[in-house]
């Protein structure tokens, strides 16, 4: 058993380029690790055939031996959230509706990762259609937190986060509509970025809420995050909402001086509902910022309390629309025994969707239906304007806004039950970045009771580079990076 799987993406890439290791060895290490822990973690919905994956690794090794030019991350194993379309590989959204669906095309980010010759190990579990905060809404099974397998990994990109934290892949992609990359990153002790809306193409991302969705990386440190962003960011003419921006070298920001940066601390985020221990860890990390010559000041963001209602209305309305297409006509699940097409629709949609998805589709239908549109949908779009303006105002004076990523550490599987609000309120700090379209990252900043705590940094639109610059310095200062649960995996709280 070797420990190559513990390397960061940057370390692995360097070792490959220096021919200290081969991609085959790296992949074997990951496969062994999967063999060891996946039974307890259950992060993969689809795990690709080991022999085929190794064949791909060998091809890359041969190319390297014959000195063919290879992209920087060639030969590095990774995973994709199961709402990213992969041609010929099942893409299920963790839903019965798409259980055996194989898309006939690759998502833009998948093309880019293929071009960069990274190795796809499999598709990661998630909450059904990305609706949830724990993977408990997956139609298949719940993924477990590698730091304590009695706890959830967060969600909806919980599979992606758990796989990265458990050492089963070097990095993964998730999608973030209201915190779905950052919250699981926080729960699993990894780095997760939601890029500026429009920075990463959504072409081939199965939509939940189109005006909020962004694809983002989950990695074990800030440098890896910057490296993955260099691959997946960039304009795509197939996505009309893709920003026409030049590609940036994000890694060049790392190590630059951060003196003089100004950080805003919204006091509205440090009130009721925030776990006292989590608060202590986050404030401790913030306190250390001043040692780096950074100014930290309290600000007030009174519209934050409206963020959740606005988010809920916008996301469910768009979800109703985006999920209307699942009708059993062209692809996916079709219910038996329908005598006409109306009954086909009703039976298929009732049998194919889980309860959380049905509830949100119905809420969206309600908010958009005639007579309610102005009171709900239009009102939420206006609130969105105000929230955006409030953030813009803060960003006139400050470079970053810092908050906890989540009000608590990872909770127990089954703990949140059916209460429709408590679960969603765990996204309370993350949703404003989606509403305003700004970039936001979660980085590990410490532990409470052995469970990782995440710190969220929001920045101005398209200033991912400066976020990396700041977070890289912070990560060095805090000494929390690339930490895998030490002795493998805890089963039911005991070390095995």
């Amino acid at each position, binding site marked *: 058993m070797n420990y190559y799987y513990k390397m960061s993406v940057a370390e692995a890439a360097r070792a490959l380029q220096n021919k200290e290791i081969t991609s085959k060895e790296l992949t074997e290490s990951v496969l062994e690790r999967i063999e060891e822990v996946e039974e307890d973690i259950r992060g993969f919905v689809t795990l690709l055939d080991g022999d085929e994956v190794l064949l791909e690794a060998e091809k890359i090794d041969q190319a390297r031996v014959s000195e063919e030019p290879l992209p920087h991350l060639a030969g590095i194993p990774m995973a994709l959230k199961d709402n990213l379309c992969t041609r010929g590989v099942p893409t299920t959204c963790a839903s019965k509706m798409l259980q055996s669906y194989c898309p006939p095309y690759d998502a833009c980010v998948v093309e880019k990762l293929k071009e960069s010759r990274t190795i796809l190990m499999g598709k990661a579990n998630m909450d059904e259609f990305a609706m949830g905060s724990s993977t408990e809404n997956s139609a298949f099974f719940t993924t477990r937190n590698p730091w304590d397998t009695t706890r959830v990994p967060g969600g909806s990109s919980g599979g992606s986060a758990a796989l990265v934290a458990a050492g089963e892949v070097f990095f993964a992609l998730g999608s973030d509509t209201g915190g779905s990359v950052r919250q699981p990153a926080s729960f699993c002790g990894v780095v997760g970025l939601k890029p500026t809306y429009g920075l990463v193409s959504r072409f081939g991302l199965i*939509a939940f809420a*189109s005006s909020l969705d962004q694809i983002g990386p989950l990695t074990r440190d800030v440098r890896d995050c910057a490296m993955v962003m260099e691959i997946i960011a960039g304009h795509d003419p197939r996505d*009309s*909402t893709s920003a026409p921006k030049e590609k940036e070298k994000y890694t060049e920001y790392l190590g630059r001086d951060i003196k003089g940066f100004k950080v805003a601390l919204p006091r509205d985020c440090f009130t009721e509902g925030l776990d006292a221990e989590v608060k202590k860890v986050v404030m401790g990390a913030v306190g250390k910022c001043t040692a780096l010559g950074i100014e930290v000041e309290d600000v007030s963001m009174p519209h934050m309390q409206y963020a959740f209602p606005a988010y809920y209305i916008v996301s469910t*309305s768009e979800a109703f*629309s985006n999920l209307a297409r699942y009708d059993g006509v062209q692809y996916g699940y079709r219910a038996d025994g329908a005598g006409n097409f109306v009954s086909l629709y009703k039976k298929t949609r009732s049998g194919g969707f889980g309860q959380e998805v049905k509830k949100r589709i119905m809420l969206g239908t309600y908010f*958009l239906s005639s007579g309610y549109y102005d009171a709900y949908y239009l009102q939420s779009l206006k609130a969105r304007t105000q929230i955006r303006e409030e953030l813009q105002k803060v960003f006139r004076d400050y470079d970053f806004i810092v908050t906890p990523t989540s009000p608590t550490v990872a909770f127990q599987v089954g703990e949140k039950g059916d209460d429709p609000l408590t679960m969603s309120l765990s996204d309370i700090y993350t949703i404003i970045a989606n509403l305003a379209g700004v970039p936001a990252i979660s980085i590990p900043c410490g532990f409470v009771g052995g469970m990782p705590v995440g710190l969220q940094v929001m920045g101005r639109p398209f200033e991912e580079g400066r976020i990396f610059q700041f977070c890289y310095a912070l990560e060095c200062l805090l000494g929390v990076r690339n930490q895998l649960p030490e002795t493998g995996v805890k089963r039911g709280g005991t070390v095995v």
Partner: protein
Amino acid sequence: MSSAFEIIISLEVQAELLTKSKMFCSCPNSFGQKPNTNICPVCLGLPGSLPVLNEKALDLALTAALALNCEVSSFSRFDRKHYFCPDLPKAYQISQYEFPIAKNGYLDIIKEGEKIRRIRIDRLHLEEDAGKLQHDGSASYVDFNRCGVPLMEIVSAPDLRSPEEARLFLESLKRILLYTGVSDCKMEEGSLRCDANISLRPAGSREFGAKVKIKNMNSFKAVQKGLEYEAARQEKLLSARNVVYQETRIWDGERGITLEMRGKGEEKDYRYFPDPDLPPLDISPGRVERVRSALKLRAGEVY
């Protein structure tokens, strides 16, 4: 038709645009291919696919808007119109609701050799076409080839006063769309389609009666015939002091009658909202002028 009633008609005309590719993807805009061969993830509405607007579709709609004396909107936007039908793969049609490309135009029709009537046009907007359904007794079959073909919808004001005027309006419109190269207007191939709203009111009244929408009139003659039948049907009902219900009826050309549509469920609620996948349009005076000069050039060639 006795003079006791006045006929009020408005038309909703849909014309397929003469583009090379579809509205939101690069599939060819063509007719008569083998079923389900002219399709891609975008026009099939596959999960994860996204639309990108064909610029030519906008310019053709603007050409028609100027030829029909419309006010072009400086701000225009696409909305999603939701309804469930197997030939509509996303279960919504990308259309325009609140902010159409153009509004408030008119078209002059020539009646009885010289008498000119000016028919107002309410709005002109862009939308995507749906696929085609075939039926046999036991099942229906879907061909998605036509999905995403660019359509322009032109809605007239209720200014038409006879089935004959409705036909004349359509003929004038066809001439214009053909001259300007906007559409080939082949009703038999479905590249020009027309639904009509018709109501009757006592002569001299200013109130409108309950309007009936007539679908499936597949030729200019059918439009006139269908409306003549429907006007007579409504007149008979009203003369006998019966009620005309607001409804949609289908023209059955073979039998020469309009039929009630079967199985009408709940009321229509399209749940329109702005399409988040498509940024809005800012139609600049420069673009309008460019289209206008091309139109003048064309007019010069034609006359």
